[in-house]
C-alpha cells in the first residue's frame, strides 16, 4: 500500500465509492470496501503532503541500454 501512486490510490478509491453507491453489496462487503476506502484516502492525503519529486536523466550505458541517472540539480544553477 505504501508504494501505491497517488493517482492509482485515488482511482481505486473512486471505484470503491462507485461500488458502494450501486448499493448491491452485502453489509460485510460494504464495510470492507469502506475500510479500504478510508485507508486509501489516508494514503492519498499522506502522499499529497509528503511526496518528493524525483528527477532523472535518460542516458545510455556502454552496452547501449537505457539507464535513468539522478539529475544533479546544482548543475542547473547559473
Amino acid at each position, binding site marked *: 500500500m505504501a508504494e501505491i501512486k497517488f493517482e492509482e490510490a485515488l482511482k481505486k478509491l473512486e471505484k470503491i465509492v462507485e461500488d*458502494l453507491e450501486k448499493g448491491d453489496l452485502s*453489509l460485510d462487503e460494504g464495510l470492507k*470496501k469502506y475500510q479500504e476506502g478510508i485507508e486509501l484516502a489516508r494514503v492519498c492525503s499522506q502522499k499529497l503532503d509528503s511526496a518528493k519529486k524525483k528527477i532523472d*536523466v535518460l542516458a545510455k550505458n556502454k552496452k547501449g541500454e*537505457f539507464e535513468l541517472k539522478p539529475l544533479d540539480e546544482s548543475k*542547473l544553477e547559473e
Partner: protein
Amino acid sequence: MTDPAEDLFMSAAQKNKGRQIYTVSQVTHDIQLLLGETFSGIWVEGELSNVRPASSGHYYFSLKDESALLSGVLFSRTAAGVKFKLEDGLKVVCFGNIDVYPPRGQYQLIIEKIEPKGMGGLQLALEQLKARLEKEGLFAAEHKRPIPYLPARIGVVTSLTGAAIKDIFKVLERRFKDVHIVVAAVKVQGEGAREEIARAIEDFNLFNRTAPVQERIEVLIVGRGGGSMEDLWAFNEECVARAIYASAIPVISAVGHERDWTIADLVADLRAPTPSAAAEVVIPLKEDLESRLTHVLQRLRAAFADALEYRKKDLLELVHRLRLSIEHLWELDGHAFAAAQAALQRVNPAVLIPEYKDKLIDLARQIYVRMDQYIRLHGAEFSGVTEKLSSLNPLNILSRGYSVTFKLPAATIIKDAESVAPGETIKTQLHKGSIISTVTQVQ
C-alpha cells in the same frame, strides 16, 4: 568638314587594314572580364522557372520577368544554407555576379544569396513545410492522442542549460510532487539540434518498449524557452515533426513563443505556449487534488451510510465487526476517524438497545391484548367444554353410587373376577372413602 557618318565608315575601313582578330576564347575572355567587372555584387529580382536540382547539389534555373530571361546557378555550398524550397513561379531577390561559361558561350548569374520576395526565407520555408506536412495529415485532429491526467512519469526533451528545465522545476515546487521526471538532455538550437531532439523523442519510445509498465514514460514535454525565430528553428524541422508524429507517447510541445506556432506545435498532441504552461497541464495543483480527495471521501461516507440504512437487519452483526475494527480505525487520520465515528454512531448499541427494548415491550403488550380478546370471543365455547370435561370426571360417577375396585398392592383396576383369587386383598374406592377387603370366593 567630313560627314560624321562617312568618318565612322572610314575609321572602320582603316581599322580593317590592320585588323585585330580575336580567337573565340579571347573574345569570350574579354566579355567575361567586362561582364564580371560591370555586374559584380548586384541584386536581381525575378521569378524562378525551370528549376533543376542536380545530383551534385547545385541548382540550375532561370530568372525571368515579362520580357527577359537570365540563367542562374546556385552552387551546392550556397544551396545548403537555403531553408526554403526553390520552386517554379516563386518570386525571388538574388544577390551575385554575372559570369560567363566559356564552353557554351553563356552568361549566367552566380547566386550568393537568394531570398523570397516579400518575406524572409525562413518564413517561406516554414510555410512550404507546413503545407506539405498538412497535406500528409501530420496535423490532423484525429491523430491527436489524449494527454493523460496526472501522469506518474513525465519525459522532458530539452536543454539542461536552458530556461525551460528550470521553469518546469519551478512549477513543480508549487505543485503536486508525486511525479517522476526524466530529462533527455539535447541541444535546442544550432547545428545538430534537430537530430538530437528527434532522437531523444525516439529514445523515450524505445525506452518504453523495454521498461516495465511501472517505469514507462506517460507523456513527453518537448520544448525550450523563448527566442528568435532562428533560435526556435529546430522545432520547425521536418525530422522533429516526424519524430513527434511517430511517438507512441503523447507529446506536449512547449516552445517558448506565445504568438507563433512552430511545426512541432502543430504536430504535437497538445501545444503549450511555454514550458511552464506544459508542466502546469500535467502536474496539477495540490489544492485541486485535495478538493478532489475531499469530495471522494464525502461520497464514500454518504454511500456507506446509505448502505447501512439499506441493510439494517444486519446491523447487530456489524456492530460486532465495527468493534473489532475499532483499533484499526483509531490509527486513521482525522478525516477518516470522524467518518468512522459517524458510521459507528449509526450502529451504536447504546442507541439500538433501547430501540429494541421498546419493540419488545410493544410486542408483549400486543400479545396480552390479543389473548384477552381471544378469551372474550371464545368464552362461551370455553365454558361448554368445561362442563363436558367435568361430566367425564370419574369422581362424578362415584357420587352417583358406583365404585371402582383395585387389586392390591399393584392398584390395577379389576374389570374381570377371574383376575383375582381367594385370599388376595382388594381396595374398593367409593364416592367418599374406600374399603379394603379379602377375597373369600370368586364366582
